[in-house]
């Protein structure tokens, strides 16, 4: 039976990296704290990519299982959030590709994935008429639709930056692409969104 390491005062206030260390030293509670800290963010983030709540929950769970399985390989020289987002992003993208192969798409996803050549695909004109102004919920839905219609290579870095608040450096590590490419893709995503949401912003 493995020993459990206890810390006076508990581990709830530990920083992420310290929690990983505590967990590797045998403190199961440290892993529970990590799960509690990231579960909401991860389910929300994955759901913005796959638009399937149950799938997002399953993938978030799988993300934690991989964190658990490979915790000893985690190098503390970069943020834990970078690592966990990288696992979650890879799982979500793999699942989207799997669904693409099997034709398991919602229409919203098909719009995004059919744009792999980077050419903007026309989406319905959502601009409000002078007589009608969109309310907050409608604006959000339009934004979500426009984000979904972005090619994946633009959509993912945009969401990581603008929704998840990751830094450019973190996004480089999550997606394993250069800083220049990250900046360029986010720039392109914003310009496309501006075009798609003309009259709404």
């Amino acid at each position, binding site marked *: 039976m493995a020993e459990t390491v206890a810390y006076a005062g508990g581990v709830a206030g530990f920083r992420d990296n310290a929690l990983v260390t505590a967990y590797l030293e045998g403190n199961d509670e440290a892993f529970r704290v990590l799960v509690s800290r990231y579960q909401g963010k991860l389910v929300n983030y994955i759901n913005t990519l796959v638009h399937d709540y149950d799938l997002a929950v399953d993938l978030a*769970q799988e993300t934690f299982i991989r964190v658990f399985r490979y915790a000893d390989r985690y190098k503390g020289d970069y943020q834990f959030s970078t690592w966990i987002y990288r696992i979650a992003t890879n799982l979500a993208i793999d699942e989207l590709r799997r669904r693409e192969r099997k034709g398991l798409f919602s229409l919203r996803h098909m719009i995004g994935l059919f744009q792999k050549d980077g050419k903007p695909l026309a989406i319905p004109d959502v601009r409000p008429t002078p007589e009608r102004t969109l309310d907050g919920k409608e604006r959000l839905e339009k934004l979500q639709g426009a984000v979904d219609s972005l090619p994946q290579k633009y959509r993912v870095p945009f969401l990581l930056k603008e929704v998840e608040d990751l830094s450019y450096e973190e996004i480089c590590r999550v997606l394993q692409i250069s800083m220049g490419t990250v900046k360029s893709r986010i720039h392109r995503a914003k310009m496309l969104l*501006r075009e798609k949401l003309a009259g709404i912003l």
Partner: protein
Amino acid sequence: MKCRKVRRILTEQMQSADSPEVLEHLESCDDCRALHQDLLSLKQLSGELKGQMDLPPFFTERVCSQTTPTTRPVYWKFAAALAGLVFLAIGIVNFVSVSSETDASAAASAPVGKERIYRIDASDLAVTASGIQRQGQVFSLDGKEWEEITPGDHLTFQPDVRIAGVDHKTSPPSYVFELPATIEVRQTQAENEFYLQNVSH
């Protein structure tokens, strides 16, 4: 400063976006000023995609039950073997299997050492954050021995308890077990800690 450079500075949210050169350019260039306004709106609107999603009940417990095998399986096997020996030795079968047709309160409990074990037929059983439910009723097991599972309790699903899905029609949402399933619920000496195992096979 040229428009192209200003646009890059604005979309990448560089610190120099507030520099006198950029501000001066924005004053004199309608196109860049409009872009600046749109980007601010886009940022604000994107932030609203952050909304936290509700997690299924016991998400943390479900993840942790699959990722902390250091002590629990050993303990579990030991406890199960001990319980079996006790049952055989004293010749008492101290549980009642409740079928889906019978009254929900008919099951019995059997203290084993300092544990309490309950065995219930899960043909239409669901676990929610407010307790074990069966046909919409809290499953009370005679209403005396059983301590109700409440939000915040640690609920550990053994791997053979397979979750068929989440029923969002109940409030709070509930897990539904895959059948066949006879779920053994053990409440250990530790308060608020329950272990669920499928003993149907």
